[in-house]
């Protein structure tokens, strides 16, 4: 393509420059410098995580030395045990799994349902409603936490994980994401054929749409799980230190004028680890999802 479009050379170049030009033409074949920079970036990305392992494996007296220890110590197991006895970490991990799991299931289900309706069904007010959903993505909902807290207090959900799960059961991004995907992934003719055969809408959803939605649902599920697991502000407000999520425990661990850093970073490590495992296994799909969402958004 490019060669046919490029104007013919005005003068004959000496062979050396020509070769250099050809090398430039096969553009962006990265050299050593590129990999050097990438390695530096990877170093900065991984270093704080590595550092949390270093600190989590030291005792506090070692952390008070200069220069600071940069290699692993032998106290990781001890600190882990300490973390699990000093704060309710077990409970927090269970809560976080329940919260993130429930939110993920619900977001994926409701987003797929709504996405199906917006992508494939005709009904009055469809465009306005879809537009309003996109609008909700811009609403900073954290600013509504005060009435939300009052509401939770009224129905006596404060201190329970329902207060964290229920408000997060839907989000605009999920609906938008599934709408985009389903409008391309499900052939309209197939749905029409199903209709002619007398299929009800819910049956079409179950037998045609849901199987087709699986790849996008998986990506949306992973992104939702990450966000729900990492959510900080609202759980901190509405939960108690006795029955927390993992992120709330972290705030307990870092409280006070003098922080017990080997303990606090052990906590951080425990909080990161489950997601890290998910990320190592499914990182490629997660990245694909973020980039897909970006192009369409």
């Amino acid at each position, binding site marked *: 393509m490019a060669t046919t479009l490029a104007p013919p050379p005005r003068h004959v170049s000496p062979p050396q420059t020509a070769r250099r030009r050809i090398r*430039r033409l096969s553009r962006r074949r990265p050299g050593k410098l590129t990999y050097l920079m990438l390695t530096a970036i990877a170093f900065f990305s991984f270093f704080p995580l590595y550092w949390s392992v270093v600190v989590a494996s030291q005792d506090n007296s070692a*952390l008070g030395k200069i220069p600071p220890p940069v290699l692993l110590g032998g106290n990781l197991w001890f600190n882990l045990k300490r973390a699990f006895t000093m704060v309710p970490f077990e409970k927090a991990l269970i809560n976080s799994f329940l919260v993130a799991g429930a939110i993920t299931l619900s977001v994926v289900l409701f987003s797929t349902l709504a996405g199906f309706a917006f992508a494939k069904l*005709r009904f009055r007010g469809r465009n306005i409603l879809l537009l309003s959903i996109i609008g*909700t993505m811009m609403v900073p909902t954290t600013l509504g936490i*005060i009435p939300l807290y009052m509401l939770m207090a009224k129905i006596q959900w404060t201190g329970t994980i329902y207060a964290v799960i229920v408000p997060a059961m839907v989000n605009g991004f999920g609906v938008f994401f599934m709408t985009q995907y389903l409008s391309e992934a499900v052939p309209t003719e197939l749905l029409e054929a199903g209709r002619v055969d007398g299929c009800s809408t819910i049956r079409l959803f179950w037998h045609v749409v849901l199987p087709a939605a699986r790849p996008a649902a998986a990506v949306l599920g992973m992104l939702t799980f990450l966000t729900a697991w990492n959510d*900080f502000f609202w759980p901190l407000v509405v939960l108690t230190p006795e029955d927390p999520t993992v992120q709330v425990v972290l*705030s307990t661990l870092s409280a006070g004028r003098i922080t017990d850093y080997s303990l606090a970073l052990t906590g951080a490590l425990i909080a990161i680890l489950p*997601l*890290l495992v998910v990320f190592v296994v499914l*990182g490629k799909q997660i990245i694909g999802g973020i980039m897909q969402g970006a192009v369409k958004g």
Partner: protein
Amino acid sequence: MTQLATEERVGPRRGLLHRLDVKGSPYLYIAPFFILFLGFGVFPLIFTAWVSLHEWSLLSEEHTWIGFGNYTKLFDDPAFWNALWNTVSIWVISTVPQLLLALVLAHILNQRLRGQTFWRMSALIPNITSVAAVAIIFSQLFGRDYGLFNWVLGLFGVDKIDWTANTWSSHVAVSTMIIWRWTGYNALIYLAAMQAVPKELYDSASLDGASSFQQLRKITVPAIRPTIIFTVIISTIGGMQVLAEPLLFGGNGLTGGSDRQFQTLALYLYEVAFGRFDFGYASASSWVMFLIIVVVAAINFGITSRLRRS
């Protein structure tokens, strides 16, 4: 299930049911979203406005109507202005380098790399780290006496910096956390946009002898400008709500340092609402924050649409 059973029966009723199904069921499918979002997203935000017009404390049952009293009080409140200033300062210090770095990183990633997935994953890994964990890890790194950063700076002859003590240093520390967590994410968004730029543009630029950096400036940036503005809007909305980093950096203190030197708006809101339980006043500051976000986003939108038209 019952619906399915009746459907299979052939008869005059099927037509009605069928029409009901086709016309009505779409609303059924979108209903969960709207019910939940109205209940837990929109209603609280609107009710915030109502609360903000009252003297409303969690500690008392009586809520006195005071009109815009909370708002006038807010505009006379030095702590509010301080928090606003801190928020803007941290937003600038974190967003500008973050987006520039993300552009460069995306430009580097936008090549036929060996181990492409690995490099992309290493760019994104900070973003899957929870904000609380990031804040704790960096608070340790920024420690005055035993922190790694001060030690490294010491090698270059820099005196120990008490990062939490000063306005500028605490803003730099908080911004560092934000930059670390979000650069890779933005880079991936840019990368997605960059992949839609026609490769021929780069080829002919290479023929004209444009360097890689020139290509980034002259071709890539104009081509992905809508995406850049999108990330600016997203960072603005996020930047106005920064809370976890200053909260945990200050050892869980609600004031963001002894002199409020790094108290952001969201942290101030948290302090007023759940430190002093003054819900009316906190609601007023919520609404002011909301308006600030809307105004900034609207300005961004205005710029975007003008750029698209031209």
